[in-house]
């Protein structure tokens, strides 16, 4: 006689085995030249891209059922991959999870509606779009980075010399050590967190309609800072040299404008909200 515990264990095993049986793995390999282009469209599931060792693109895909197929094509230096949903596919059965290796100088273009989008250690252009997808990009340099999400959170970590444009309706945007000639974030209700030093001569424009904006910077930062909230509040923990002229009236508590550090090498920082709060904080240096 089997105990009830053993029966439960066997049932769980059968469910697990059934899930595994429904999943299939697919591997694709493409040879490309320098500065290849890779585009992946995946309605449901995650896409993760990392650098490969040579001029090859390796795609590892896990398909969660037979209601989804993978279409792929190569046209010269350009590779297109698409999850093709078959009749009756839904968010579970249509799910495909991709792990992709590309040459570090490749330009990538990833689209999905749910799941997650991840890219790391690349220096080609990166375009990531996902309605409900969480986005995570790290260790990217000298790249043009376009990100669009609806409510997915965006995390950017160690982006050097980037040309970064992020649009998110309600997802929070968190940036750590992000710098470059242009860093622009626009959100409706998402919170924007920036931790870094605003680089040396870039333009940093962080805007959220009703979300709060929090910038944490070291005391030695050189920047020309303008912060303005139409109906919300602004707070500034760092002494700024006030500007003699601004394009708006500097109403205490609603706006501040000034410079810090060495003006000759400073970046331009514009923090704007309609009804959110803006807080410019000094980073606590480690002892």
């Amino acid at each position, binding site marked *: 006689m089997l105990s009830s515990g053993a029966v439960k264990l066997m049932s769980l095993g059968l469910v697990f085995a059934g899930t595994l049986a429904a999943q299939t793995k697919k591997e694709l390999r493409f040879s490309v030249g320098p500065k290849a282009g890779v585009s992946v469209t*995946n309605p449901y599931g995650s896409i993760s891209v990392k650098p490969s060792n040579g001029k090859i693109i390796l795609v590892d895909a896990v398909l969660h059922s037979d209601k989804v197929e993978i279409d792929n094509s190569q046209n010269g230096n*350009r590779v297109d991959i*698409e999850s093709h949903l078959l009749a009756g596919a839904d968010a579970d059965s249509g799910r495909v999870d991709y792990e992709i290796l590309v040459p570090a100088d490749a330009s990538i273009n990833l689209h999905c509606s749910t799941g997650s989008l991840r890219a790391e250690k690349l220096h080609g252009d990166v375009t990531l779009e996902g*309605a409900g997808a969480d986005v995570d990009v790290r260790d990217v340099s000298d790249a043009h980075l376009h990100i669009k999400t*609806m409510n997915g959170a965006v995390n950017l970590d160690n982006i050097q010399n980037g*040309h970064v444009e992020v649009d998110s309706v309600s997802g929070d945007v968190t940036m750590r050590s992000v710098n470059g000639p242009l860093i622009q974030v626009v959100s*409706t209700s998402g919170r924007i967190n920036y931790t870094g030093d605003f680089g040396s001569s870039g333009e940093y424009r962080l805007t959220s309609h009703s979300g709060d904006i929090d910038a944490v910077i070291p005391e030695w930062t050189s920047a020309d800072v303008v912060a303005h909230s139409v109906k919300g509040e602004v707070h500034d923990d760092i002494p700024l040299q006030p500007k003699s002229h601004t394009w708006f009236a500097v109403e205490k508590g609603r706006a501040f404008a000034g410079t810090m550090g060495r003006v000759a090498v400073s970046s331009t920082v514009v923090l*704007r909200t309609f009804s959110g709060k803006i807080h410019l904080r000094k980073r606590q240096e480690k002892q």
Partner: protein
Amino acid sequence: MNCVELQQSLAEVDDASTAEQQAHVRSCPTCAALVKELNQIIAAAVDLRAADEPSPRVWANIEAALRQEGLIRPVSQPFLPSLSAGWRAVAWLVPAAAMLLLSLGIYLHRQTSPLHAPAEASLSVAAPADAVDSDLLQEIAQNSPAMKTQFEENLRQVNQAIVDSQGWVAENPNDAEARRSLLDAYHQKSMLFEMAMDRSLQ
């Protein structure tokens, strides 16, 4: 040539007609879309030069007078015909047109110095398009039902942002920051429509 180099080169050759530009545009959908939008803006801007719009304050005064006279009321009917009857085939032209108008707005806004923006630039203020929203949500419910609630909630937030900014701009027509907030809110709404058209949702 990468995206950054292409955008820098557009300052010199704005129609992206050089061989190098063309090669990049062919391989990059983002830059192709940018070049297309720029060409549309350039074409439309020529026509706009002839227009000499009065300042927003004039429109606000006219609107206030018309309301006092009882000649206009808050909009109760959708300002566009329902897309569900016979218009479905061209439904996506609406957001496309909205995007073009929005791009024009941003283009004109950027061309105007912030100091002079309130007096010279004009900005048309419209209520969020409820009829278009419900058609969009209907399409999403059909194509990607799992995403409908999320789109609904985000559309609500963007529409609220538009209404907030509109109200403030109506009371403070010279507030350049509020006008910019309104443009940003429209930009976010156009992005939502763009996302709904994305192939990953079809």
